[in-house]
């Protein structure tokens, strides 16, 4: 099996995982979960770093640099926003009282 096929299987399984993880989620968590998944695609910062790491011309460096800033902002901002939302669930007394 060559790597293209392996990649397709990864894609399939990851897509299924994403679907399953979110399919039985209460409405109450929709906003935090959107925010959480927004944070998770902040992993793009790693890709931007790899690209910047191989950039040679000033143009490539500039675009890569810009990409890393954007990716880092996605990750850091996404985390901070999600954390702030979820913090609220924690302080609250457990239901039923």
């Amino acid at each position, binding site marked *: 099996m060559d790597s293209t096929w392996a990649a397709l299987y990864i894609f399939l399984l990851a897509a299924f995982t994403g679907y399953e993880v979110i399919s039985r989620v209460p*409405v*109450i968590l929709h*906003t935090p979960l959107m925010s959480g998944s927004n944070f998770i695609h902040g992993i793009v910062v790693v890709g931007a770093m790899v690209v910047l790491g191989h950039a040679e011309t000033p143009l490539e460096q500039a675009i890569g640099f810009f*990409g890393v800033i954007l990716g880092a*902002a996605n990750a850091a*901002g996404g985390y901070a*926003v999600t954390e702030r939302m979820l913090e609220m*669930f924690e302080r609250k007394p457990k239901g039923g009282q």
Partner: protein
Amino acid sequence: MENFVELIYFLTALLFILGLKRMSSPNTARSGVIWAGVAMVAATLATFLLPNMHNQLLMLVAIVIGTVVAWIAAKRVQMTDMPQMVAIYNGMGGGAAGAIAAVELLRGEFGEAQGLKLLAILGALIGSVSFTGSLIAFAKLQGLMSSRPIQFPAQKLVNAGVGVGALLLALWVLVSQPSFPILAFFLLALSFGVLMTLPIGGGDMPVVISLYNAFTGLAVGFEGFAIGNAALIVAGTVVGAAGTLLTLLMAKAMNRSLWSVLVGGFGVEQEAGEVKGSLKPIDLEDAAVMLAYASKVIFVPGYGMAVAQAQHKLREVADVLEAKGIEVKYAIHPVAGRMPGHMNVLLAEAGVAYDKLYDLEDINPEFPQADVAVVIGANDVVNPAAHRKGSPLYGMPILDVDKAKNAIVIKRGQGKGFAGVENELFFADNTRMLYGDAQSVLGQLVQSLKKL
């Protein structure tokens, strides 16, 4: 060393999935994001260890700039402004995916690997649209530009033209290697994101932000394939799929198909029906008496409550009523506020136990038994016009506040909701309007109630 980094990426993907899973249950949600956060830091640090990498100092500087600015902005912003923060950070992720593709395409990195090049280009297209589209969504929600649909002559034609142009250029980039089509391709893709978002009204923004979130996930996944990075592939694809499902759930909650959100502006073909009756104001004392002698009260919070930061005062009112032995419930419309769950988060912040929050299907049968339903800054989600054909709201599930014995509507002024439709509920015989800023009105209600 490379294997070590790959191992870290593998664990990162695992922690992301477990973290997302934990985030989908209220009790474990917080630990979920912390797990994912640890994984993110580990993956970023590990990337510095990859062999044959240059520009490490530039990376470090860029990471520090991006992290510090975004972190401070996210910590400072009001809870009510969270939806647009999600939008802007999401857009940045899309931009980063576009930047990855731009560099790879400029370098002619793919050689004969047309499949990978195609994925890189697709990721660039989707990421660029998500980037500028999210910026427009941010600007609309932040009030930097009008949140109404922005329209101009032959808009659909222009949009379609730009979209098709971007696709053709994408094809050109795929089969050739000069720099010109790359630049033109990105310009068209970025413009398409702007054009696509302009005609969408503020009311549909939650769906659109969620859609762009899924877009960015997919773009990140595609770029992961293009640069051969498994962490990006897995995390991006998981978010792409989860985000798509979330988008469809939201669109369903608003009873709007994704297509109509994207193609038709909200309330474009308006048929303003005549509304009978008049607006009947009520003063605070009377409202307090009405509440104090009720046996069942249902609160219906909306965006107005969020804007006024009135969730704490609302809880105080509820506490006073409960102390008097009155049954209090909260009716949460799936799209009240600017995002599904927006109200739940705010009320949770104010310390309202979440077993008092009821979804639309659960609370609607209870309105006829409610003595008073109090609407706090909600509008379209309680408009009975949604039951009537020809209304721009037709088909949207609403909270049946009009079925309650009495309704009090707390509202800043006489303006219309996002859909720009008069609200028939406000003109109904058993509805009273209590004008003012939600926070101060509720604060005064607490005082009045305590005196009774």
